[in-house]
């Protein structure tokens, strides 16, 4: 734990791996592994361990659920950011390459047209400039539109934490909440737990996972990873 704070990730990972060999269902080892892999840019590992920790946490009813939920979302967000950065770099490189090739073609055409005269050379130059602009415009259009993507549907948002839902559970009234949030609410009022919306009595055992909504949220997040920390 101290080494996690000291950022000695490698030795943290070694410790936790050893720990997992001894007790494969240690939520804490999975959670710490996720925290150690994230700064090392092992995004997929970090996410896998966080998801495993979340699953174990739900099974055991451990009170770390809010923190682990946050960790899963953080992993998803960083993984998405990394993919985006790479994709962006690749497309802009491709664009530069294509433009460079076209510029070479243009220079060659200008060199070959030795008998075209000044006016002819200007025509060739203008023609190539127009072509290059067209290609740039096409790349521009292919770029994702930031503002278009920045809308998170209300159905994916938990009304308690206002966060994106990862593991929604449904109450008897038909409304879904993030598991970590609604558990926190019901535990605080454990002597008289009630539905936040209708105020009807509501036990933790009344909650059911909302699998369809969970899948819809996961699919939205796969295409819109930025929403993870919305």
């Amino acid at each position, binding site marked *: 734990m101290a080494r996690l704070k000291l950022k000695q990730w490698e030795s943290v990972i070694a410790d936790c791996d050893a720990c997992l060999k001894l007790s494969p269902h240690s939520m804490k080892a999975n959670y710490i592994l996720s925290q150690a892999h994230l700064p090392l840019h092992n995004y997929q590992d970090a996410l896998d361990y966080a998801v495993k920790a979340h699953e174990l946490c739900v099974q055991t009813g451990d009170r770390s659920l*809010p*923190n682990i939920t*946050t960790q899963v979302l953080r992993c998803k967000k960083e993984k998405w950011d990394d993919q985006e950065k790479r994709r962006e770099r690749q497309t802009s490189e491709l664009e530069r390459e294509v433009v460079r090739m076209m510029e070479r073609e243009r220079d060659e055409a200008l060199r070959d047209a030795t008998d075209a005269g000044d006016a002819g050379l200007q025509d060739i130059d203008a023609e190539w400039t127009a072509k290059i602009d067209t290609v740039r415009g096409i790349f521009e259009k292919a770029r994702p539109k930031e503002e278009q993507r920045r809308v998170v549907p209300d159905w994916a948002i938990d*009304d*308690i*934490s*206002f*966060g994106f839902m990862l593991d929604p559970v449904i109450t008897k009234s038909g409304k879904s909440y993030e598991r970590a*949030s609604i558990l*926190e*609410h019901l535990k*605080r*009022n454990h002597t*008289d737990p*009630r539905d*936040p*919306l209708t*105020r009807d009595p509501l036990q933790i055992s009344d909650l059911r996972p909302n699998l369809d909504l969970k899948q819809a949220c996961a699919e939205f997040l796969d295409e819109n990873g930025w929403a993870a920390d*919305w």
Partner: protein
Amino acid sequence: MSAQFATKRLGKELEKIHNSLPPGIELVSAENFEEWQLDIRVLDNNPLYMNQTYRLKFRFGSSYPIEPPEVVFVKLPDRAIPMHPHIYSNGIICVDLLAAQGWSPVQNVESVCMSLQSMLTGNTKNERPPGDEEFVRANRLRPRDIDFYYDDNTV
């Protein structure tokens, strides 16, 4: 529950508040995630509150929104404490919604303001709660620690 939870949720509430607020509610200050101030006005012609603006102070703990915020009216040179049988003259509000048992985490700053707005709109009694003077003189507790007795649900 970590303080991060409260901060994140308040950040989102603030973003929404900056975008739009219902008529008669205005944000005055929200420099941190511990204390915000808002002004509210009653929109109809209730003679008790006509042409008056009232200042509300919200204080958030690290367990918000699992725990309710502490909400009081503040007295300023141009802001009075509204007359109401559930509002003490020191600004403390006795309302089920803001007490531990009446609070719900799906409530938010905007919905609390709207509830208080309609609590004023619907009131016709130009009076303070019973025992106001004594309460204001003797009370040293913070609003959330006071054990209110909700004896009258008609107001």
